[in-house]
């Protein structure tokens, strides 16, 4: 029996122009990669799509000469597949797919995502309670938390506006959240809406 060529050797051969090596690589890892994708998406067609996109990325990266992870071909491909699976679910969240069925339900397309009156009152109560709790925080932490959550600023913008480094802003955010949890725990406050 001919000894199997190592992945890294095949990758090198492929980069230097041997198309056959790619075929060996794809066939060698087909089962593992497609099983991995299928275990996450549970759909044969989507599995084929993601598998294809994964290898298109692999081919482009190898041909551009941007591949540098010697000897770790499979984990690298798995990571690409993993990222594409995440992209797939993100895309589906934004643009839900409708399963073709005879009993078409209009409420799957239009829905009332507003809270009902009771939940709205609870939400308002929570929001006002939370703003009182935030007042308890030290000023530097409060400032970062308000900018991040209420003004929706990025940590980069926060660091520019407050004159501290991004890491300091991140640290302050972290401590703000920890302290908020402490205050909530200490006073046995229940902040849920369900």
């Amino acid at each position, binding site marked *: 029996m001919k000894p199997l060529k190592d992945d890294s050797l095949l990758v090198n051969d492929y980069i230097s122009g041997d198309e056959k090596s*790619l*075929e060996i690589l794809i066939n060698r890892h087909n089962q593992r990669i497609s099983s991995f994708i299928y275990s996450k998406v549970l759909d044969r067609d989507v*599995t084929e799509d993601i598998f*294809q996109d994964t290898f298109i990325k692999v081919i*482009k990266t190898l*041909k*551009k000469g941007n591949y540098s992870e010697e000897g770790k071909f499979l984990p690298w491909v798995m990571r690409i597949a993993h990222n594409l699976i995440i992209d797939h679910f993100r895309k589906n969240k934004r643009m839900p797919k409708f399963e073709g069925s005879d009993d078409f339900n209009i409420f799957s397309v239009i829905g009332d995502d507003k809270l009902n009156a009771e939940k709205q009152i609870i939400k308002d109560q929570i929001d006002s309670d939370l703003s009182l709790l935030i007042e308890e925080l030290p000023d530097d932490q409060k400032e970062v938390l308000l900018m991040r959550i209420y003004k929706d600023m990025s940590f980069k913008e926060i660091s520019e506006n407050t004159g501290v480094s991004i890491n300091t802003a991140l640290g302050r955010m972290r401590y703000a959240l920890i302290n908020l949890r402490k205050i909530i725990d200490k006073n046995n406050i229940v902040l849920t809406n369900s």
Partner: protein
Amino acid sequence: MEKIYSTKKNALAYPRVGPETIQFLLAYSKALRIVKHRQFSFEMILN
């Protein structure tokens, strides 16, 4: 007695990607040319 145990296929054996997809990828790989010029790299699909 020996027939009591069923030889059920492993339900966890997921499907492999079909030969069409693999053929497509190989054809794509053959058709793709990357041309580098300074810091740019251009992708070309040669049919």
